[in-house]
């Protein structure tokens, strides 16, 4: 039993103040995780750039990676087909046929790095080097007109790239439902 639940348990005798943390004795079977173990699994990157690894890339370098590893599914220069379109669509979101792409819709540049690293290419996820992921992120942002083709993305510069649609999202939590 943790100290916190123990403390609550003692209080519970006389009050319902800790009702949410009702006393449950647990076997405490979690083994300590080492920093090396955590580093091997922690692939998430937040919008502030926390979690971005060393490495860097530009759109020019990313074009070559894209043609080799992404184009078969996402089309030349991110035009889409057979799978998701990645480029264009800016200005269409309020129309009858909105086109949702990285450039028109995605609110955070960090998500491009996070998602490509964890899930792409579809048939070989987590196979790209960090330099390749930075280069692909740069290429996709450049195709969308958000950065220049020689702009270098790394852990410092990537989170500073503001996406065009970022301010058009309304957070519905913690307000309930919609």
């Amino acid at each position, binding site marked *: 039993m943790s100290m916190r639940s123990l403390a609550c348990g003692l209080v519970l005798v006389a009050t319902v103040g800790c009702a949410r943390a009702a006393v449950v004795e647990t076997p405490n079977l*979690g083994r300590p995780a080492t920093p090396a173990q955590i580093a091997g699994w922690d*692939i998430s990157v937040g919008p502030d750039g926390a979690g971005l690894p060393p490495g860097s890339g530009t759109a020019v370098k990313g074009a070559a990676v894209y043609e080799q590893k992404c184009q078969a599914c996402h089309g030349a220069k991110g035009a889409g087909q057979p799978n998701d379109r990645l480029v264009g669509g800016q200005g269409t979101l309020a129309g009858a046929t909105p086109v949702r792409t990285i450039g028109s819709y995605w609110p955070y540049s960090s998500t491009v790095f996070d998602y490509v690293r964890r899930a792409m290419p*579809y048939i070989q996820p987590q196979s790209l080097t960090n330099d390749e992921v930075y280069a692909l992120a740069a290429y996709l942002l450049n195709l969308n007109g958000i950065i220049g083709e020689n702009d270098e993305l790394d852990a410092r510069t990537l989170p500073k790239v503001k996406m065009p649609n970022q301010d058009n999202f309304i957070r519905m939590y913690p307000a309930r439902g919609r």
Partner: protein
Amino acid sequence: MDKRVASVSRRRFLGRAASLLAATGLLARGADEVAAAEPPEVPPWMKAPGAGFSPYGAPSKYESKVTRTLMRSQPGTTGSGAIRTPLEALEGTITPSGLHFERSHSGVPEIDPDQHRLLIHGMVKRPLIFTIDALLRYPMVSRVHFLECSGNSQLMYQPAPPNLTAGQTHGLVSCSDWTGVPLRLLLEEAGVDRGGEWILAEGADAAAMSRSIPMAKAIDDAILALFQNGERLRPENGYPLRLFLPGWEGNMSVKWLRRLKVVAAPIMTKDETSRYTDLQADGKSLMFTYPMEVKSVITQPSHGMTLKGAGLYQMSGIAWSGNGTIKKVELSTDGGATWRDAALTTPVLPRALTRFRLPWRWDGGAAILKSRATDDAGGVQPERARFIAEHGSNAVFHYNAIAAWSVAPNGEVKHVYA
């Protein structure tokens, strides 16, 4: 899903609809009635011993058409998409595990439970690793809850009715008895640091599918589910371990859970930004729309069935709300001009499918059937016209408007917008 793809899917469905409906009992009985084992004949299955025991039971071969319906997988993939529960062929409130809907982003991983690990780290005092064997020793809870993909009924955003069965339009909802360890217990063991307001939950599939979960929900009623309907989770529902967040959009209940990272703010993963956000008519998008809103659908009778002449029928369907407990389901047979309260099958549980029923004497004329659910949080299921006026038709997720089935004098039941 864009509209082009939807129309392709719709055509694909039509061929399948007839065979699926043969299983529902509302189609006219055919030749099999002629050959029935009626008295005085003694049926052949009484004249010889039956089959032996089976190590794991399966439905009757006569029910083999009751299957999940695949919409589509992403081009070039077999496991990136969704497959739906055949709601019109089921009764009661518990979905058989083999018919529970399935939404996967990169296939179903085959995970050896002895090799699987859950890592809890980030803003905690003690980063911890748990084996499945260890988790099985923790105190557990069992809860009956629905799970609904937030993309359920998305085809009904389209301007024309999609001409599909209740399962094909609404079958991304299912309901099970989930058993597992309250997440709160493991968070207490790890010791959450002050300021740890969110948890990044990540699956061990090839998409490493991930969502940011508010700490308040994690503490309140989140379950680390190990069992579904009494047996260990099915692979397509997260074996050996999934997160389960009662009432909230399905993809947040991350399957094949391998990692929980306590963080100060949302990670803004692909599936909480690019997907599972709701584009409104004005071009703005709603984000973090977590609870699934109050909703219902009539399953008997429903689209694709044929009533066999005027007379008494039992209308039946399901209602649910991610915001609480179903308080009332009203049924209309005149397109919403008048309403009657349906009977709710007890027990009526919070954030669970609720079965409603009402006898209906069909006079043989044209009718339009509707169901309207109300929950105890004050939510009332809206009419479609009002819903579309409020949200537009560019969204993909969180469609919860009233569904209407028309009944023609020849008995044919069809999905309509009315």
